[in-house]
């Protein structure tokens, strides 16, 4: 089949969703489909959201160069607004600031009349567009739960392997904990840095990723007097990241209400335990406390205690990590695409 995968992408930012789309295109091609991604630049500013939905609506993706396109796969807001007789959604996320993030410090929507109107319009628009779609599946149970709650639409979660899957391998359980994340408030790197100030053992923190908070977080590490124990490795992709995973004692992953989160599965595929929090969302679909990782309260002291526990007992780290690998290895692309295409 000829398939387009639609993505709304913020220029200059590489994120999990972009990798998701690339992996999907690759996997469709491996299975003999003619697949390509199509994008529109995304701008998260409130006053541009409806215009961008309008821009997607202007696009008729039913043919290209006078030949039909059989299926369109939408991924995140507002890609499902495009026109196609056979739309399938593999939901990565909606415009989160207008949904579950509203009311937290991570949303720019206030309770003003204008913002409330806009939130309601976006939710109504999404619901209407979803009804045009033949099928809606989500990347995780967490995302399915949200769309059921906010849009009254039932969707089925489908897990897929992380893009780094082919690169990951296991090395020793070293003297550092790894953080892999875009350096953005939702990923709560600040919480991890504060936790390190409470850690008694001599472990270091390696942070892979880049983002708008980079300067701020580097300054914070210095101000907290832990600058010599924290390495900002910058944005890395492929083998260099896999190598950081391979040598880590464990992975700390404490985002707020993550959709799915490749990091959990990447850590597990490298046989590393994951330390996460009770409000982390997607990671909790995989991380079980004391079995393949440690789940703690989203507070620096609790995270520090979990880090100390791993640092004091490398055999525990290894045992948890190997149990995690067993979980992650059951997630494959086989079946995902069949279910997606119906």
């Amino acid at each position: 089949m000829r398939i387009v995968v639609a993505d709304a992408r913020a220029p200059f930012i590489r994120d999990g969703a972009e990798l998701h789309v690339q992996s999907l295109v690759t996997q469709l091609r491996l299975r003999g489909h003619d697949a390509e991604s199509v994008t529109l630049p995304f701008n998260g500013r409130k006053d541009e959201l409806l215009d961008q939905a309008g821009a997607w609506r202007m696009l008729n993706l039913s043919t290209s160069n006078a030949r039909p396109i059989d299926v369109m796969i939408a991924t995140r807001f507002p890609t499902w607004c495009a026109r196609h007789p056979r739309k399938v959604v593999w939901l990565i996320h909606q415009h989160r600031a207008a949904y579950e993030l509203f009311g937290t410090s991570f949303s720019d929507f206030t309770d003003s009349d204008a913002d409330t109107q806009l939130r309601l319009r976006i939710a109504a628009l999404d619901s209407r567009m979803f009804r045009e779609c033949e099928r809606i599946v989500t990347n995780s149970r967490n995302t399915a739960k949200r769309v059921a709650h906010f849009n009254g639409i039932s969707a089925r979660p489908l897990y897929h392997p992380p893009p780094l899957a082919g690169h990951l391998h296991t090395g020793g359980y070293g003297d550092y904990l790894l953080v892999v994340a875009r350096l953005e408030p939702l990923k709560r790197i600040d919480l991890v840095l504060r936790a390190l100030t409470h850690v008694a053992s001599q472990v270091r923190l390696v942070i892979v990723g880049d983002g708008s908070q980079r300067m701020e977080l580097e300054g914070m590490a210095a101000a907290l007097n832990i600058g010599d124990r924290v390495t900002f490795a910058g944005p890395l992709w492929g083998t260099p990241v896999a190598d950081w995973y391979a040598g880590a004692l464990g992975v700390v992953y404490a985002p707020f209400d993550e959709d799915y989160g490749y990091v959990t599965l990447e850590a597990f595929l490298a046989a590393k335990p994951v330390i996460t929090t009770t409000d982390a969302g997607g990671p909790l679909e995989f991380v079980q406390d004391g079995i393949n990782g440690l789940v703690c309260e989203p507070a620096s002291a609790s995270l520090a205690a979990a880090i100390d526990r791993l640092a004091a007992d490398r055999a525990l780290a290894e045992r948890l990590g190997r149990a995690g690998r067993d979980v992650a290895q059951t997630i494959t692309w086989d079946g995902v695409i069949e279910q997606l295409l119906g």
Partner: protein
Amino acid sequence: MTPLRILILEAQVPFVHGGAEILVRELASALHLHGHHAQVVSVPFTDSPKEEIVAGAEAWRLLDVSYAGGGPIDLVIATKFPTYFARHRRKVLWLVHQHRAAYELAGTRFSDFSHTPRDVALRRRLIAADTRILRECVGHFTIARTVSERMLKYNGIASEALYNPPKLAGRLHHGPYGDYVLTVTRLEHVKRVDLAIDTFLNTSSAMRLLIAGDGSIRHELAEYIERHGLSDRVTLLGRVDDDRLVELYAGCRAVLFAPYEEDYGYVTLEAFLSRKPVITARDSGGTLEFVVNGVNGYVCDPTPDALAAAVDRIGTDAALAASLGERGHAVAAHITWDSVVERLTTAGSQSERVRAAH
């Protein structure tokens, strides 16, 4: 020089890959080499049914690209229709082409616009909208003189042609002047591959024709070759990778490239960088900005007879091919990315505005 944050705007036709796509990626690399932060922004484009053309322009108009990825965008570079409909205060045009079916192709067999009142009205509307939106740009450049001439003729807007080297520039080399003539093209009607094939019905020399490239009419052309009993002399190679293409250029006697009103055409420059002469037609557009009849190739009437005579001339005289090709090389060798980057990134800048005011 202050590094700029730049977006290059691209109209993507899903499942179709051609020169324009390579051009924008090469431009992004060249901007990076000059220290700028550049990203390509693509939006899918469809022209069927024709009414969707207007919707495609409206989609771009709805995009405010003045801010992205946590900071302001200093400059956007628009390329094809309808990318220039995007909103930005410093929008520079490097025009690849407009919607050709509504412009110079209208009324030819290459356009789906006919002389019905509806089509005429839509054409007028597109041209008027283009003219209005193109005036918003703070700098007007095109990829070739042909494109500049069209914009002047239809939109009344003057521009400067900025040539760029082909993607393979660093890798092309020359080899023996072999027993085949090469055509490199997408297999579409507007490229007139059928004319190249017909040429070989009329040649008397032993030259063969190798055609590299793929497209929507491949099947039709294969049948055509078969039907005319040319299977032993004309070969469709399909899509070839860059390594193979470089070697195909290196070993050919000459390159035959006779599309209708090509905008620019990397093929000419690639042939010249491989020191091969180019046989083209006098209505081939962009090739004529480089090919001079009898100096570095031949410019013929767009007929199989005329093209066959040129093929035979080069086909029977390898030394002639070498001397023409050598002079072609001199033309292509001085086209670089540096001047393209310089012109695009200074257009509409503060310093240029100050200079213009004095």
